[in-house]
């Protein structure tokens, strides 16, 4: 399953540069243009004179050796670029998913238990609105209110320029804490808070809705009635007997949010000038930095694939019905 999909992804990324309008070498040369002799030289240098299947094969071999090409804009290897920026996106995505889980699961549980109450109706109304939210607009609104009107949070970036400390983990929250500079952690935290809310909104809505419906299904099951009949308290029935079973589909949902998060990161990072791979991809597309786009595509698709696979495995581990098969 994975292997053919991986090769498919590489074909898509390889084909990407070939189907772009215009000559790749002229694109590389930029506005200055290129002399005919130099053009021939470059043609040979990049291997464009070889048959297409041979070019693809070379590309694949390079990929397996960790060579994802060189960025036109920065002249650095694409993989290096990606790995420098990746922690920023991971930090943001992790915070967003934690935000979504911490709010979404309790909200979903209470909604299911108090089905039809005002709490349920309000929560589900908000969840549907969150699910329908154009998040790039949501980000702008939060900036208007919290950064503009109230002046509480900064508008862009990961940390105030006042602070400088070496990168240890790549996660600004941890690094700023380790640096021991007073105010650094607070600055990092304040920079993170709005992007987290923006990126976490759709996952929050999806998780709340999914938890509610999974919980409702489980609450009607016989074993829940048995638990009640045994005289167990509400907390134990819901917290232990019902929740454990209801969480199984919820965890799958959380795993599926990774693709959503990476797509959302493109918009969130652009709005908040967050130096992660989402913004980098958009910038690369606009700069026509095709090696970066090509490499980024493969790496992002790989990450999505690996995460989906992990979720599948986890699903098997936590779901006894599959585990015992």
């Amino acid at each position, binding site marked *: 399953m994975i292997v053919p999909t991986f090769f498919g992804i590489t074909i898509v990324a390889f084909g990407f540069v070939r189907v772009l309008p215009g000559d790749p070498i002229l694109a590389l040369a930029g506005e200055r243009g290129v002399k005919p002799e130099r053009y021939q030289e470059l043609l040979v240098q990049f291997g464009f004179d070889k048959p297409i299947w041979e070019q693809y094969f070379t590309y694949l071999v390079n990929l397996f050796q960790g060579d994802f090409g060189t960025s036109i804009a920065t002249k650095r290897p694409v993989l290096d670029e990606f790995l420098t920026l990746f922690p920023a996106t991971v930090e943001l995505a992790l915070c967003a998913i934690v935000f979504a889980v911490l709010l979404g699961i309790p909200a979903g549980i209470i909604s299911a238990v108090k089905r039809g109450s005002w709490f349920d109706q309000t929560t589900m109304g908000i969840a549907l609105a969150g699910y329908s939210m154009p998040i790039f607009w949501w980000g702008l609104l939060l900036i*208007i209110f919290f950064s503009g009107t109230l002046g509480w949070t900064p508008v862009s970036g990961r940390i105030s320029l006042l602070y400088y400390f070496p990168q240890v983990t790549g996660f600004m929250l941890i690094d700023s804490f380790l640096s021991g500079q007073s105010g650094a952690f607070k600055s990092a935290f304040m920079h993170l808070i709005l992007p987290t809310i923006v990126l976490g909104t759709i996952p929050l809505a999806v998780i709340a809705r999914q938890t509610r419906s999974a919980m409702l299904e489980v609450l009607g099951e016989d074993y829940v009635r048995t638990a009640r009949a045994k005289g167990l308290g509400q907390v134990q029935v819901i917290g232990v007997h019902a929740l454990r079973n209801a969480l199984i589909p919820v965890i799958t949902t959380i795993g599926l949010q990774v693709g959503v998060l990476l797509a959302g990161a493109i918009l969130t990072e652009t709005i908040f000038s967050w130096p992660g791979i989402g913004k980098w991809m958009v910038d690369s597309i606009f700069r026509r930095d095709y090696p970066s786009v090509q490499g980024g595509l493969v790496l992002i698709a790989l990450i999505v694939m690996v995460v989906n696979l992990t979720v599948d495995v986890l699903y098997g581990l936590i779901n006894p019905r599959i585990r015992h098969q």
Partner: protein
Amino acid sequence: MTDTQTKNIDQTVVKAEVRNAQLQMLNEFWHYFSANKGAVIGLVIVGFMVFVAAFAPWLAPHDAGHQYRDAFLMPPVWETGGSWKFILGTDAVGRDMLSRLIHGSRFSLFIGVIVVSISLTGGIIIGLVAGYFRGWVDTIIMRIMDIILAFPSLLMALVLVAILGPGLVNAMIAIAIVLQPHFARLTRAAVMSEANREYVTSAKVAGAGHMRLMFKTILPNCLAPLIVQATLSFSTAILDAAALGFLGMGAQPPTPEWGTMLAEAREFVLRAWWVVTFPGIAILVTVLAINLVGDGLRDALDPKLKRS
């Protein structure tokens, strides 16, 4: 039943019976759909949007592209400095916000209709072929769908637009390509569960060809999940098109597309809240209404959820 008896059945009676059964199904559908209050509200809003879009030139108080040189960034009527001439204020080059929003509804609905039509048709054909023929055809088709789905949808759409060139039409094509695998998968799954039913076998025995079996026998019985998915994709299409417009890859200025309007308004975020707020509200309300309808459709069409 013998031949003589079959011939004696009055065809008009059969047709009337069929019509009755269809009416009853429709009635039942409306019964479940209208039980969901949110869905009815959503439907009313969608109806209103369609009305606004259809009569945009007559409803809009001003020309959507006309720049009033004496009214740059004029606030809405209820703010100090606002005027009844521009009820929702004007943008940075003096265009009337309300008129632009009204005209923008045309783009959003147009995007939704076109994208869903393309991806639905493509997805149904691909899914039918894969689910009906199985074997290597199925394997190849589904692998390609997996590959498309391995990329985050917005990223894939962005890259496709980069290849095709920025613009509304190319953005719609890109979004349709990205949404299409969902329909293909859904159709394939439905076809596979239907293909071995007795009615299909009996049609096959009666001599129906591949085309008839696929499109006339099996497809009508797979429509329920596809209709729900189509509604949800409608809202995704509007959101993604707006996002592409916002990133500068969708409709190009001065088109009054809501996402593009937001992109133009970005630099005035902290100075003129109205140029940012209203286009977003328009997107949110439209998408929310369509999602409400989608939820209602799912409740009404999904037999598992019916409590009869």
